[in-house]
């Protein structure tokens, strides 16, 4: 069997890549190791409206809830409210990813991609200008030939390593997460909610994202290099304190790469997209939108390279250019900011939140917030001024 492109992993990144390749006339195979695309979920499911609309026609069946903004709580309880416009459309929809991920895979199939599930990519071998991808399906191994491999294999990615890109994460480059889908709890369903503090979630935060009908994703991410216990223990404490009457109807575990911009997501015949390329936002942990953008760019570059008959790293470097220009620089900046924030004690965090609660910002993007903070507390974030001002 031979294809122009084999895409490994059918998350948002992989499905968008497969769809884009197919739309540009390439033959493409989308491989997913799980038996059900999108399950088990590893996500809090929040996405900005604009980001979503860029790539799909919004359909009620995969939207669980809509919010108008975000509320952030300081360690001492100080509350800041960000409206949607202020937050620069960072918030908006809470998805039902089990349905959403399947919908994207179906769009790829509809565009002409072949899809196989319960099939794991276990290795690859490069020859002169082609690649043999080794697959294992229900215990049986076989090979598929192709010109380009797109690694969209998520946080646990192996494709990069096979191609010589070391994507191993250190304990300060990852957020370890647990989340409960809870029902029967009281909260303001118009907002996504975020709690910060070194006792609440060291190196991360606790979130609550509404999912309709008094239910919500209540979850936590902690940085293992700073956490004294597992995120589950911190989350259980938080839930006991705040939502002890709620019922937990689903448990989700996961990890988000928060390493920031990697040097390259490209090797000969190989491109990495989404979490596999560590494309998630180091501050928010959001990665769906960037995964879809990256998948789209990788699809475009794959089509160009195959038409040109040259799938070397040099040609594929164009993909690095595209994702870096779009959101790579932002990842690098956010990583620097994250390194600052995780060093702050609760007192400093409180001080920052008080400042933000008291000042009238026209726009509360991360950038606008940092700008204001540098003005008011120059010592705190001074070395970031060149990045954000």
């Amino acid at each position, binding site marked *: 069997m031979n294809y122009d492109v084999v895409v490994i992993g059918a998350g948002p990144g992989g499905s968008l890549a497969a769809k884009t390749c197919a739309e540009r006339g390439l033959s493409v195979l989308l491989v997913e190791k799980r038996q059900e695309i999108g399950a088990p979920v590893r996500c809090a499911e929040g996405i900005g409206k604009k980001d979503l609309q860029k790539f799909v026609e919004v359909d009620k069946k995969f939207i669980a809830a809509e919010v108008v903004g975000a509320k952030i709580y300081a360690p001492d309880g100080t509350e800041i409210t960000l409206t949607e416009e202020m937050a620069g459309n960072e918030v908006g929809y809470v998805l039902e990813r089990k349905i959403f991920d399947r919908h994207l895979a179906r769009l790829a199939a509809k565009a002409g991609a072949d899809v196989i599930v319960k099939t794991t990519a276990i290795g690859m071998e490069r020859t002169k200008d082609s690649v043999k991808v080794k697959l294992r399906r229900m215990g049986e191994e076989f090979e598929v030939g192709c010109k380009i491999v797109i690694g969209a294999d998520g946080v646990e990615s192996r494709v990069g390593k096979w191609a010589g890109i070391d994507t191993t994460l250190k304990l300060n480059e990852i957020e370890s997460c647990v989340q409960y889908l809870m029902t029967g709890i009281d909260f303001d369903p118009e907002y996504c909610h975020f709690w910060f503090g070194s006792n609440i979630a060291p190196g991360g935060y606790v979130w609550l994202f509404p999912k309709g009908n008094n239910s919500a994703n209540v979850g936590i991410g902690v940085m293992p290099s700073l956490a004294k216990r597992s995120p589950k223990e911190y989350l259980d404490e938080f839930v006991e304190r705040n939502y002890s009457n709620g019922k937990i109807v689903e448990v989700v*575990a996961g990890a988000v*790469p928060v390493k920031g911009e990697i040097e390259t997501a490209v090797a000969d015949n190989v491109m990495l997209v989404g979490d596999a390329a560590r494309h998630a936002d180091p501050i928010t942990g959001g990665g769906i939108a960037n995964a879809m953008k990256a998948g789209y760019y990788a699809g475009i570059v794959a089509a160009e390279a195959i038409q040109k008959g040259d799938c070397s790293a040099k040609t594929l470097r164009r993909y690095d250019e595209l994702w870096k220009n779009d959101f790579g620089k932002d990842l690098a900046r956010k990583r620097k900011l994250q390194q600052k924030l995780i060093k702050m004690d609760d007192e400093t965090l409180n001080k920052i939140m008080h400042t933000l609660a008291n000042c009238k910002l026209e726009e509360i993007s991360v950038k606008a917030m940092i700008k204001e903070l540098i003005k008011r507390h120059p010592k705190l974030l001074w070395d970031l001024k060149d990045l954000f001002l």
Partner: protein
Amino acid sequence: MAKRVVVNRYRCAYCGACVAVCKFNANELVETFLVIDEEKCNGCGICVKVCPMNALEVVS
């Protein structure tokens, strides 16, 4: 005996965090479960620290 890591399958929630941090490629999320390659695992314990579910333990 040499150190290595073992997984408690009843706790593991199939998330991949441990795979992302192992530089020895000693673990793998197979279709529906985690496997640890005893030959490759040196018991360094990095994955234990990242596991959100406390499902991993170094034993000797």
